[in-house]
C-alpha cells in the first residue's frame, strides 16, 4: 500500500524485553496516552475509539490484544499487511498509549441496538449489498470483500459508510474512466498504477490493464460508486444491518 512506504525507511527493531504488565498506568500516564492517541490514532480509530475506519478499540477485551504485551506489540509494530501502521514512540509512550486504549474499553460504548439476524436479510435482499460485495463464498467483485469487516472497522464508521459513502472514500480509491487510441472507452475501479501503466476492475468484475501510452484520455475521480442508503433503509433496517456487519468477524 502506498501510504506504508515511509515506514519502510525505519525498521522497527525486534523487542528487547517487554514486561507482561503495563508499567505506566497512572492517571497522568493515561492523560499523556490520550494526547498521543489523539495525535496518532484518532484519525483512524476515532476520538473515543469506536467510530473510526480502524478497528473498534472501545471494547472490554481486544480480540488481538487481550494481554498488555500484545497491545504493546501491535502499537509498536502495527499489523503487517493491513492499514494498521507501526509507531516510533519510545517504550514509555507506547505503554501510556496502551493505557489509554485500555481505558477506552472500560467506558461502555454506544451499544449496538440492532438485530444481526434481521440485518443479514437486509444485507441480502433490500440492500442488495451482494451485487457489489463478497461475503464468504458469495457476492460480487466491485466493492471490497466484507468478510471480517467487523474486526477491521467500528460500528459507527460502518453506519456512516452505509448512510453516506461519499463522506469517507479511502485515500487510494479511484474511479477511472479512460479512452484508448483504438477508441475504446472503459470505466472501472483502479487496482494499481505506475508511471507507465494502470490496472483496473471493470464493472463486470474483470481485471483490465492498459499502457498509459495507449490511452488518449484518463480521468480519475476520488469518489465512490457505492450508492448512499440515506432514506432508502428505515432506521431499524439500518441498525440491524450495522449489527450484522459489526458481528461479521470473518473466519477465525
Amino acid at each position, binding site marked *: 500500500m*502506498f*501510504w506504508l*512506504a*515511509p*515506514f519502510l*525507511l*525505519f*525498521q522497527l*527493531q*525486534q523487542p*528487547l524485553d517487554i514486561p507482561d504488565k503495563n508499567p505506566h498506568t497512572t492517571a497522568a500516564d493515561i492523560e499523556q496516552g490520550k*494526547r*498521543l492517541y*489523539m*495525535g*496518532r490514532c484518532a*484519525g483512524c480509530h476515532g476520538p473515543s475509539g469506536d467510530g473510526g475506519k480502524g478497528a473498534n478499540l472501545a471494547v472490554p477485551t481486544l480480540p488481538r490484544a487481550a494481554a498488555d504485551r500484545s497491545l504493546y506489540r501491535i502499537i509498536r509494530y502495527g499489523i503487517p499487511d493491513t492499514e494498521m*501502521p507501526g*509507531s*516510533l*514512540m*519510545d*517504550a*514509555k*509512550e507506547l505503554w501510556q498509549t496502551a493505557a489509554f486504549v485500555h481505558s477506552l474499553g472500560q467506558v461502555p460504548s454506544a451499544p449496538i441496538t440492532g438485530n444481526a439476524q434481521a440485518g443479514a436479510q437486509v444485507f441480502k435482499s433490500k440492500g442488495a449489498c451482494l451485487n457489489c460485495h463478497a461475503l464468504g463464498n458469495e457476492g460480487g467483485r466491485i466493492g471490497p470483500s466484507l468478510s471480517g469487516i467487523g474486526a477491521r472497522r467500528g460500528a459507527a464508521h460502518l453506519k456512516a459508510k452505509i448512510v453516506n459513502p461519499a463522506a469517507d472514500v479511502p*485515500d487510494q480509491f479511484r474511479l477511472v474512466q479512460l479512452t484508448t487510441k483504438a477508441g475504446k472507452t472503459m470505466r472501472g475501479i483502479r487496482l494499481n*498504477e*505506475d*508511471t*507507465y501503466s494502470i490496472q483496473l476492475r471493470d464493472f463486470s468484475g474483470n481485471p483490465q490493464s492498459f499502457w498509459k501510452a495507449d490511452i488518449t484520455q484518463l480521468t480519475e475521480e476520488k469518489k465512490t460508486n457505492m450508492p448512499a442508503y440515506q432514506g432508502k433503509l428505515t432506521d431499524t433496517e439500518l441498525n440491524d444491518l450495522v449489527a450484522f456487519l459489526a458481528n461479521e468477524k470473518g473466519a477465525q
Partner: protein
Amino acid sequence: MRLALLLLSLPLLAQVTHQRLLNAEKEPGNWLTYSGNFSGHRFSPLKQITDQNVAKLTPAWVYQSNSLQKFETTPLVVDGVMYISEAPSHVTALDTRTGRVIWRYRRTLPDDVRVCCGQVNRGVAILGDLVYVGTVDAHLVALDSKTGAVRWDVTVADNKTGHSITVAPLAVKDKIIIGIAGGEYGIRGFLDAYDAKTGKLAWRFWTVPAAGEPEAKTWAGESYKRGSAATWVTGAYDPDTNLLYWGTGNPGPDWNGEVRAGDNLYSDCLIALDLDTGKLKWHFQFTPHDVHDWDATEVPVLINAEFRGQPRKLLLFPNRNAFYYVLDRVTGQFLLGKPYAKQTWAKGLDDSGRPIRLPGTFPTVEGTRVWPSVAGANNWYSPSYSPDTKHLYVATRESGAVYYFGNAEYKAGEQFNGGGFRSIPGEEEWGAIRAFKPTTGEVAWEYKLFTPPYSGVLSTAGNLVFGATAEGQMIALNATTGKLLWRFQGGGTVRSNPMSYQSDGKQYVAMTLGNSLYVFHLQP
C-alpha cells in the same frame, strides 16, 4: 620471453593503485570507486550504448540475492571481476560477462543487530589486492580480492550501542575512509581513516564535540553526549586540495529538539577534512538545529566551473531539506542556495546560507504537516554530473509528512527518536528526475515519476541518464532533453544506484532492481 612478460604483467594490472583511482576516467571499462570517480560524478565515459540504440537494451544476466533486505549496492568492476555487497554484510565476486560467482564472503552476525533502517550495505571499496566492506555489526573487513579470504577485521565501534556500518568505504591514497551509522541511537558520530594495508586506525574525526570544546556550546547542557551526526553515505575527495568532503547526519534525538537547544554542530553539515591528518579545514551546516531528520548525507558533487564570471572550484549539494546548495570547496563559502522541491519549513536562506525558518513547523504531539517528508527531497542515493551536457541530474521526491514530537529518554542500544512521523493522509506524492544547470540551480528539464523515487542516477557519454522508479522500472532518458528512450520492469522497488562497465569490448549497465542485480547490454 613475450609470454613471460605477459604473465608477469597480468597480476600487476589487477592491482588497484591510488594512481588508477585518481585517473578512473582513463579506464572507463572499470568502475573503481563508489561514485565512479573521486568527484562524486557517477558519470560513465562509455558510449557504445547511446540515445540512438538504447531502445535495444536487454538483460545480459541477473544475479538474485538470497536476502530479502533492501539491495542497495553499487557494484565495483575491476578487470573482468565485479564486486558487490549484499545484505546484511556479505560480499560476492562475479564474472562480469556470465554473472557466475567467483567467490563469496559470508559474515556471521549476532542475532540482535541494532540498525535503524534495514540490514543493508551500499558497496565495497578496492585498493591494492584488497576489497573492503563495512558491516552492520560495525566492523571494517579487508578481503583478498582474488579469494575473498579475510586478511584483517577491525572493530570500528560497538553495535550494542547502536553503531553500525552500511556505507561503502572510500579508498584514497593509503587509507580506507569509513563512516558510521546510528543516528537513531544517540551515538557520538565520527569519520574514520584506517591504514589500507594493516587496518590500523590512522585518525578519527568526531562529528560531535567533547566536553569543553567550543562546539559543545551549540548543544544545551550535556546533550552533545547523544549528538549522533552519523556519516553513513560515501563522500568525495579532491587531490588538489587534499580534502575529503563528507556529509553528516541528523542530530539526536531526531524530532525532539527541546532537549538539545542550539545549532548542534556538526550535525547536518558538509565537513572538509585534510586526508592525511583528519583535521577539519571548514564546515558548512545546512540545517542548524534540525528537528525533521534531514541528514545531510547526500553525495557531494565536485566540479570546476565559472561561477558569476569567476572560474571556481565548486561543491554541489542537493540536500534532503529540499534546498540546492553551491559551495566554494576550497573555503567552504556559501555561493548559492534555493529550493528545488516543495518545502514549507523555511522562508529562504540568508546571505550566509542559513535557513530563515517559518514558525509552526516544529514537530508537535498532535502532529505538524511539513514538506519535504522525512525521506526528504533527495536522500542517500546518488545524483550525477555529466561533463558533456554540464547538467546535474537529481532524482527528486515531492512529498510531505506529519511530524510528531515525543519523549527523548536515552537508553543505550535503543532507538532515541523523540517522536515519529507518518505520511499525510490523502497526499498525492510524486517524483521527478530533474536536470539542473549546476551554477544557477535552474531546471533544464524534468521527467515526471508517478511516485517518489528511492534510487539514484547515472549519466553516460552516450547522452543518456539511467535511473529507476519506486514502482520497479529502470529507465533511460535522453541526457539533453529528458525524453524517455527505454524502460524495463524489474519487479521490485528500486533502492540503489546504476553504474556502467565494459567487458570483452562490450558495454554493460548494471543496477539492483528489487532483490536482484540486473546487468543489461545491447541485444546481440
